[in-house]
């Protein structure tokens, strides 16, 4: 390196060096970007479930809890309507199951339990079970399993009127 402030003359050698450096950085960048895009997780729309037709409204008596293993949710019919609860424990993602005799959802991984509305009864789960949007038309219940909705605790607005 020269100490004077004037730019070093662009000799043939310097030019080649510069070109080589620029080209190889470009190559590294390209490869890096290509790898990143290549590795990007793929989210397919409707990967599991999509919109599930759960059946006729009348087929679910008030107070019933019905499991839909393929849709990974439970359909709960409360006094004032329906709730579709994701079966993924909000703690670390194990599948919860409904224990009818205890009237709660139980997660065997770290013993969290949730009441019928999905509210946490027993930690370590940090928040209530996720819900899926429900639509009722022609007397049938449609559950959209595309996107789970997060919530902290149960509020009455989450219920879809029957």
């Amino acid at each position, binding site marked *: 390196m020269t100490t004077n402030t004037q730019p070093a003359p662009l000799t043939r050698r310097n030019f080649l060096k510069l070109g080589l450096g620029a080209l190889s950085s470009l190559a590294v960048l390209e490869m890096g970007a290509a790898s990143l895009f290549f590795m990007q997780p793929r989210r397919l729309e409707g990967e*599991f479930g999509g919109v599930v037709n759960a059946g006729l409204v009348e087929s679910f008596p008030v107070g019933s809890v019905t499991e839909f293993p393929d849709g990974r949710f439970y359909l709960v019919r409360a006094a004032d309507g329906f709730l579709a609860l994701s079966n993924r424990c909000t703690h*670390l993602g194990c599948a919860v199951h409904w224990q009818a005799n205890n009237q709660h959802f139980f997660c*065997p991984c770290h013993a969290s339990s949730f009441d019928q509305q999905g509210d946490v009864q027993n930690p*370590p789960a940090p928040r209530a079970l996720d819900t899926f949007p429900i639509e009722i038309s022609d007397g049938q219940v449609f559950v959209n399993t595309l996107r789970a909705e997060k919530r902290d605790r149960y509020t009455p607005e989450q219920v879809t009127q029957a």
Partner: protein
Amino acid sequence: MSERTPTNQPRRSRLLYTSAAPDDRSRMRAVANNLILHLHPTKVPAPALKWSYTWGLGGISATLAVVLIVTGVLLMFRYDASAATAYTSIQLIETQVLFGSLIRALHHWSANLLVITAFLHLLRVFYTAGFKDGRSTNWIIGIILFLIVLTFNFTGYLLPWDQLAYWAITVGTSLLSYIPLVGQAISDFLLAGPVVGQGALRNFYALHVAVLPTLLILMMSYHFWKVRKDGGISQPKEEEMEENGRRRPIERLTTIPHLVQVEFAAASVLIAGLLLFAIFVPAPLEELANPSHPPNPAKAAWYFMGLQELLLHMHPLAAMLLTGLVLLALIFLPRLDRDAADIGHYFRSAVGRRAAALGALLSLGLIPMLVVVDEWYLDLPALLPGWPTLLSNGLLPLLFSLFGLFLIYALFRWGGRLRHSEVLVGLFSFIFVSLIILTLIGVFFRGANMALVWPF
């Protein structure tokens, strides 16, 4: 280097070194051209060879890595990385392939043993202050190697695609998503989908058989090279080797045969033991993964059981932070403890030895008590109903734990008037033993519904 290899040498040894001329110059050249002596120095101090100093743990770990690579490559020839057929291919290996069960058991048990020996190696280096005196880089490389080993085990865990695998990985990846800022991205990348599925299996396989082995071999080579560049393994300073006021030069032995033969013997015994064990205890294989029904109890792999036990007592973010802080403290240990005078002495000093014992005893009494109290008598979120769980079940236990660690430090430092270096020995003994106790509780004392049970 231009000299031709003498041909009167047996062919076998020419593979390892390339000259046997009797004069000094040629002998030096023999040293330079020797494969073994690219890994080891030509001479090693006699005390460094003492079994009760190193317990051969580094060498044993390296041998296990070799066994794992060999058996792993074999398994690759018989394993399908597809969610539909992975489980069947493992079943075939277990029942149809000649020696299949043995090879898989060797791979499985070596992997588990490696976690233990690598951990013990870390303890040995910690207790003999092997991270001091210019060896801090290699200490950090060692910690990275330990993390690589854990990642290896974690990724390998999914491959059999049985119930154990499926749910341990579900829990493990959800745990990652609690890491602030980057966690969700890492978990998404690993899973390649909303739940553990084909995408996850493919990713884990690629990591397990290509990315991690490359990393491991690179880092291991660096680790070995650095041991040499740092002047061999740690040992007491030479001045302290005096006897009756007379300085006695440390005896130096040639690596071949003294070190190499010990290593060879240790490796042989280890492999023989592994074989015997693998013959009688096959690797476990549970039922096919069932995404809608986790087994009860659903446990993580045993080496993450300490973390899992922590998760039962605090919010995942708090548990991650606590683990992360301990890991950071380990990484920065060479900064925290610069007193290089005690290098090479187990537990630094007689006082340090007592501190270590006291730390371990403290943990032995305290940790089971805390676990029981939190399990049966204390329900923080219920006591503080208005608080978000992140505070009541997260921040509070985290602060409590950190305060406890500080208290132990203070007790040793100002109550017992110990040197900083000795206090750290006591403190880390407490942490290490706590980790072991939490792991044991998770493995043996957690039954159905993760309730505390008596194992016998």
